[in-house]
């Protein structure tokens, strides 16, 4: 027997908010992403100039050299608003939690070959500081960027990087102990192989143009570091050498980097397509930071891959360049 449940049908006067309707081509039903993102940031009639940056209004498109006719052309292909974001991440953290449990309860950390454990501690643990720096950079964009279209996902990226820094910390505690974290920090601060990367990260901290910082952090640094470390070295190389347990502990980073690359690509594609001047600026930034990040990653590749480092770096760089070409940035 078919049950026909009805609620009383009354006709709504409108489908969505006026500013959303203006953006989606008329008064139609709008998604939660659209209603939660479009035009949320004030754009005019500001009362006081910020004491901490009086050259600009509180929200000001002039804080970057790029120009956008419509700052909400920056859309998130994942359509993450807060609810969708935390629910997605909760699923991922559940998987990560299970992985950590599995490795711990089955003694897989102890079962790692000594050289693999040592390499992991040397290579992975200092990256918690890179992740923290990446979180800071995304917080900069979240604070000073223009329009919720781009500042919202950068807020999420900032918290993701903090999460990654914490996953790496947990991996360190699982594979070793708090002392290992201290060793890693010393390495980050003084070992030769980490200095070029630390310098890159610190230079980003003082990069004034927030879109340049977006390019440097989310497209260049993450675009090269994550494939190198998590795919080439951990998922491929270490796993083959008996280090699958490490890949389990870094699964979040592997998946996250693929997801965010799609988002980051979509932003620069839109910005480049907007104007020749944007394209020139962005390509300039891509090249500038690529030329600093690749040499900074080389010592890390050598640590893990020895003689194969050159080849692997070239492969990662080649794939990155191909990816960018698809976004309109042939360097």
């Amino acid at each position, binding site marked *: 027997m078919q049950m026909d449940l009805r*609620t*009383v049908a009354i006709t*709504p*006067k*409108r489908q*969505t*908010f*006026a*500013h959303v309707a203006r953006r989606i081509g008329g008064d139609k039903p709008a998604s939660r992403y659209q*209603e*939660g993102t479009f*035009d*949320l940031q*004030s754009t*005019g*009639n500001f*009362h*006081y*100039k*910020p*004491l*901490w940056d009086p050259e600009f209004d*509180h929200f000001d498109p002039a804080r970057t050299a790029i120009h956008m006719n419509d700052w909400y052309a920056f859309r998130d292909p994942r359509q993450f608003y*807060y*609810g969708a974001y*935390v*629910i997605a*991440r*909760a699923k991922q*953290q559940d998987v990560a939690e299970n992985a950590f449990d599995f490795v711990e309860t089955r*003694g897989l*950390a*102890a079962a790692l070959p000594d050289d693999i454990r040592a390499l992991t501690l040397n290579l992975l643990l200092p990256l918690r*500081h890179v*992740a923290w720096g990446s979180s*800071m950079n995304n*917080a900069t964009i*979240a*604070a*000073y960027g223009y329009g*919720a279209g781009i500042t*919202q996902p950068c*807020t999420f990226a900032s*918290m*993701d990087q*903090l*999460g990654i*820094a*914490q*996953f790496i*910390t947990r991996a360190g*505690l699982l594979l070793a*102990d*708090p002392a290992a974290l201290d060793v890693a*920090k010393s390495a980050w601060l003084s070992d030769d192989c980490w200095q070029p990367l630390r*310098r890159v990260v*610190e*230079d980003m*901290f*003082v990069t004034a143009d927030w879109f340049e910082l977006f390019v440097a952090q989310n497209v260049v640094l993450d675009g090269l570091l994550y494939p190198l470390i998590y795919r080439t070295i951990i998922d491929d190389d270490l796993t083959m050498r008996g280090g699958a347990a490490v890949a389990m502990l870094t699964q979040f980073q592997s998946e996250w980097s693929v997801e965010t690359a799609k988002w980051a690509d979509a932003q620069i594609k839109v910005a480049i397509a907007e104007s020749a001047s944007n394209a020139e600026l962005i390509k300039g930034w891509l090249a500038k930071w690529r030329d600093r990040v690749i040499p900074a990653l080389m010592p890390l590749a050598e640590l893990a891959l020895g003689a194969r480092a050159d080849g692997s770096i070239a492969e990662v760089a080649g794939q990155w360049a191909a990816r960018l070409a698809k976004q309109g940035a042939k360097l």
Partner: protein
Amino acid sequence: MDLQVAKKKLGLKERYALMTRGLGWETTYQKMDDVFPMDTFEGIKIHDWEAWEDPFRLTMDSYWKYQAEKERKLYAIVDAFAQNNGHLTVSDARYINTVKLFINALAPLEYQSHRGFAHIGRQFRGVGPRVACLMQSLDELRHAQTQVHAISNYNRYYNGMAEFRHHFDYMPYLQVPRSFFEDATAAGPFEFITAIGFSFEYVLTNLVFVPFISGAAYNGDMGAMTFGFSAQSDEARHMTLGLEVIKFMLEQDPGNVPIVQKWLNKWTWRGVRVLTLVAMMQDYMLPKRVMSWAEAWEIYFEENCGALFRDLERYGITMPPCVEQVRKERDHLSHMAWSQFYQGRGTNDFHTWLPSAEEMDWLSAKYPETFDQYYRPRFEYWAKLEAEGKPFESAGMPMQCQLCQIPMFFTEPGEPLVLAQRHRHHDGEQYHFCSEYCAEIFDDEPEKYIQAKIPVHQIYQGKQFPEGTDPTAEGFDPAAAVGAFLRLDPASTGNFVGSQDEANFNMWRGLTRSND
């Protein structure tokens, strides 16, 4: 290597330290002052950021887990509410005007707060406070969006909400909450967190949220009530951050005490002025009332904050002196405000109305020393005019306080029949204030407050006409032009009685109850 030895289990505090402050480092390729250029100019001295005690010790994985659970529950209820026309179960359609106040005046502040906390989450030198601020930034985005989503369904059926973004940027009455928040975000990071993290989110938060949430619960608005409770759980973390920041500043250097005291004084005053809207909402706009503003003040300020300020006494902090005036205004505030919004009802995006006889009796009982003496006669007179078909409405626009931007309807504390006005001169211009406290805040930073875009001035200067308007043209109607600029739907203005909202609600509710 023997890793089978049981590892010493780290405590929560130790683990959390490794997960947060352990991540940072003293930069050397760039100077720390260049990496953190904004956290010393206010004169607050921090000698040891390591002394920071983390408030809630929530790592990101736990954050995602617990917040996801809250979101699933919240949206399930928002969806159910929408699917079953939950808006028709509210006590009375007048209630929906409090929802309009919420989306227009409060939701955009959540967004401002989100950006403000991202800013200080980048600028404080200490990693611990930065992490807590970043988490708050994320929470505030949650609040902005869950409010927009929960209220989206109301927007589909009722007027006055569709243009909430444009209105927040330009509508006169909404510049009151907006300028309040912008004052904070334009200030330095330590003042921002004192103003918002402490004064607003700790001292005054319950005075905002309890009326709205309880009001929703009492009036059958399950959607808003659910949102309210769900958001408040984040507020518990925010309050703890606010309190920790105050303690931290006060403990780091005795020189910080007078600066913090000055900010507490300023922001208690600015905050209470903004709460005029909430007082009015509680006493006049909830068909099923929860408690009076006066009662809420007693519980949520006098009792609660009594404990707080007693705790802060050991640092040399005292209760802000403005509290004396707030106490004197307590029994007048909502009545003055409602009178103002009633008179100016042609220019609001929510409805107003005159209190019924029963409602006036409630107000008499709650305000035995003021309502019958000073306010009932006003409402009864206006009711008489309405009955005669000559409803009273202000013809002109009110003078606004240069600081709080509220129309200057406040009376002298202790002299309820004398309008309060203060004046200052600065650089050849005269400025007007509703009170000595607003004037004193101005005195401290005149260069800041002379920038304010006082709405009535903007209108008179012709800055609120649609682009391309010719004010010299024959038959030019400035009021209509301003209405057009503001995108103010005439159907959303004016008296609730006779409104589309009233008619629609009655018709729709009738549909759910009859069998025609």
